[in-house]
């Protein structure tokens, strides 16, 4: 069997979860497989902001809060997202579709302001574009 790192195991556990998070059971399992104490696994997991130990929505929206995005009007986008989704940063929409998160920098400054939804980056955003993207995902999901 291929040797994996703790981080890979955590990512895998999260991707298998319908609610996009790592459960206590997952951590127990990794701890046992890796013969590593729970406290260490939890320490690694909480270090990375992309991993979550709390249930999240089906799609994770990561809006960039880095300097370039901020100067390009990123703060307006955050407010727009809050308005459209009716949640605060760190919260999940009532229908369980989205969790809104803010990232320190996504490294896509050339197309600032940016956000990522799951693994998909979206650049050169405007308030209108944001609204549209959310709408299309909602409809796409419903199908």
């Amino acid at each position: 069997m291929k040797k994996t790192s703790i981080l890979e195991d955590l990512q895998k556990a999260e991707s298998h979860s319908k609610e996009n998070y790592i459960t206590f059971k997952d951590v127990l399992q990794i701890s046992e497989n890796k013969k590593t104490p729970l406290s260490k696994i939890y320490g690694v997991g909480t270090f990375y902001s992309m991993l979550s130990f709390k249930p999240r929505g089906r799609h994770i929206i990561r809006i960039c809060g880095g300097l370039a995005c901020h100067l390009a009007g990123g703060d307006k986008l955050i407010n727009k997202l809050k308005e459209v989704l009716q949640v605060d940063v760190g919260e999940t929409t009532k229908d369980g579709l989205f969790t809104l998160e803010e990232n320190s920098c996504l490294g896509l400054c050339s197309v600032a302001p940016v956000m990522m939804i799951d693994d998909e980056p979206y650049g050169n955003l405007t308030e209108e574009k944001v609204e549209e993207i959310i709408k299309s995902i909602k409809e796409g999901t419903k199908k």
Partner: protein
Amino acid sequence: MEEKTVKVKINGKEYEFPAGITILKACEKVGIHIPTLCYLEGVSEEGSCGVCVVEVKGARTLQRSCITELLEGMEIYTDTPAVKEAREMNLELALAHHPLDCMTCDKNGDCLLQDLAYEFNVKKSVFLDESEIYEKEKQTAWDTNPFIQFDPQKCILCRRCVDACENQAIVEAIGIAMRGIDEKVTTPFNLPLEQTNCQFCGECVQACPTGALIEKPRIGKGRIYDFKATDTVCSYCGVGCNIRLYTDKNNNIVMAKGLPNKLVNDTRTCVKGRFGFEYVNSKDRLTSPLIKENGKFRKASWDEAIQYIARKLTEIKNKYGSDSIGVLGSSRCTNEDNYVVQKFARAVIGTNNVDNCARLCHSSTVTGLKMALGAGAATNSIDDIKDADVMFIIGSNMTETHPVIAQIVKKHQKDDGAKIIVCDPRKTDIAKVADVFIQHNPGTDVALLNAIMKIIIDEDLVDEEFIKEHAVGFEQLKEELKDFDLSEASKITGVDLNLIKQAAEIYGQAKNATIFYTMGITQHTTGTDNVLSIANLALITGNLGREGAGINPLRGQANVQGACDLGALPNVFPGYQSVTDESVREKFEQAWGVKLPKDVGLPVSKFGEAALSGKLKAVYVMGENPLMSEPDINRVREGFEKLEFIVVQDIFLSETAQIADVVLPAAAAYEKDGTFTNTERRVQLLRVAKEKLKGTKFDWEIVSEVASAMGYPMHYKNSAEIMDEAASLTLSYAGIHHYRLEKQGIQWPCKDDSDPGTKILHRNGHFNKPNGRGVIHAVKFKPPAELPDKEYPFVLTTGRILYHYHTGNESRRVKVLDEFVPENYIEISKKDADKLNLKDGEIVKVTTRRGSIKVKTRVSDRPKEGVVFVSFHFHEAAANILTNPALDPIANIPEYKVAACRIEKV
């Protein structure tokens, strides 16, 4: 080989140091002060705080001296303006959200952060975030346990606690979570500490340099400068941890710390060592002699009580003879107490009916190891566990019974890759980390060990040369095992043969293998056979007589080794000198000035029967509690109630004291001086941590007064004088005197005043047996005395748990311990619980042929199917109502570990 050195300059002066050490270590060596905060030698060396920075010429930045290795030609400056500025800055960072509330902090005066702030005159951090400081304390994982408090605001994230948990306790219950500003010390998922694997040893608290982690019981009791500090020895198990006790102005002990004695506990101590002292302050302590009149106790003066006892004992002695009186010494009392009490039995009463509760725990060790090796004690030292390649642990739940040794064993596995083999009917904590875990049926140890030896012989893993030079009896063992059926052994033990093979190969191939065992081996009707089998295993593989190779019976009580050494046994004088040996008797007769009895006396395990049959008329008990600790206590109680006279000297009105005619109040271990001998034969000095309670006396003092009143004057000035007398009559203690123990204990045998003691017994394979050879015994498997049947389908095994101690008289009177585990429970496997349709927490009735108790169910992954476990600490549900009093024929140890029982819903 010549050691490599490096030449460096520190503050302009040239020095030469051994290569490979850090700048900090080097500076320490030559007396140059470098302040540190997060550094804890050998435990936490992460270099996170930056207080120890120094300037190294040519280096791009300041260097953290605690983690920077000294290199040839380095020019180091420890006190430049840049260094000073950086240290101040780093201190200010540490203080960024640390409340400046030293005036109300329990750790005031005992806080490294405070000391450094003082040294560098840092009054307030420029990074101070007042909004955060004054916000309400956050919920932490420490809120709901009774032992340890955590204040996240006082935490400076130095990681000393996390490293102490990882590197000293080897528990790793806590860790660092999150990052950046959110970084914090916590448990996985912020779970309450008691829901993690935390064992509350408190090593984290001891490592904390600030007031962030603190012992809850000490809060509000005062600051360090309000307390008197005393270095002494823990009063619980036989590890003999060196501890420092802190006593407040009201003569109450309020805090304990582990001392850095590298040879014993190296700063560690367990939950009982750190939190279990409170019983000494208990309101239940006896402070006046009590005499029973018309079934009720009344207070009496010491004079009246002593005279009354002397008169009654003399009467009984004259009427029924000396052997109608039994005397119990105690593994909870000092060597000096035990020397005096056995002398009292032999010289004053005139009987060898003297014993102590070692009968109930390790008497089969004494008999078995004496038969095989010539000395009934641990062969090796705690200090040389680190030299073993393989640690073979059988019948020892060491994490709960000898927690600090378990930590040392686990550390050796973790740091050095030593292998652990565990054989136990329960999947204990140590079994969970074992490289090979054998879960055999209770009472099948001989079959298991014979199987292991058969494989070792068949695979030619024996040490032929060692056997040829240093042992006898191998041929008989080979003969015995020639037709030994391994698959039959697999069936008897209930263990897959492959596992047994793995264990045999790992042990057999080890360069140095050491064995640990406890009651799982000794408390059987085949206790002596079990111990002989263990000796066989070590002898045929030559694993004896050097560092890391030996047999280590872990002794249960603080002074169980010493109580035996000093002769509180029915067959031997101090130093295991036989009472039936005429020349020995003559020596003692001359020293004590009286004729001494020559017949072997009664063991404590036969006191009950002897009382029932009328052979025994009176019992004098010093600090023991047979009505809780004996098997089948209902029957023992019946016997004791028939006695004409019972005297108990104790610190509490124990179950045994309650039925006594006279009760005498004694001083507790932390109020005594004298010595304890730990599990590795180390005689260690106790010191008075608190004044003994008004009205109490030392145990040796009480016994001496009774002796004197009976016409045999005993007038010892102090405990040191008693040890001097004992040493003069006991070869193995001949060089043991209190003044020699001030700095460090001494391991017996110690033959004279210049002998530094003996780390390892049987060095070079020399045994105290005929021709200096160890004796291999061919041992056949015999099943336990009572096996499960239709009526009693389960095997009941008994033992201890981490949070309580023996008959509970002490630990049950420690509020935090009793709050944490307030009641008894029966451990049962999930499968068995399902079969009986039992839910976790449900009360059940457990019945054996002796009696029954009601107790809560704990469904657990620990016991093997068909096996249940009950601890014997709780008088409300006393396990020893159930246990089988069947005895090992040689050692007279009862079979506490196997009884057939049934379990019913109530």
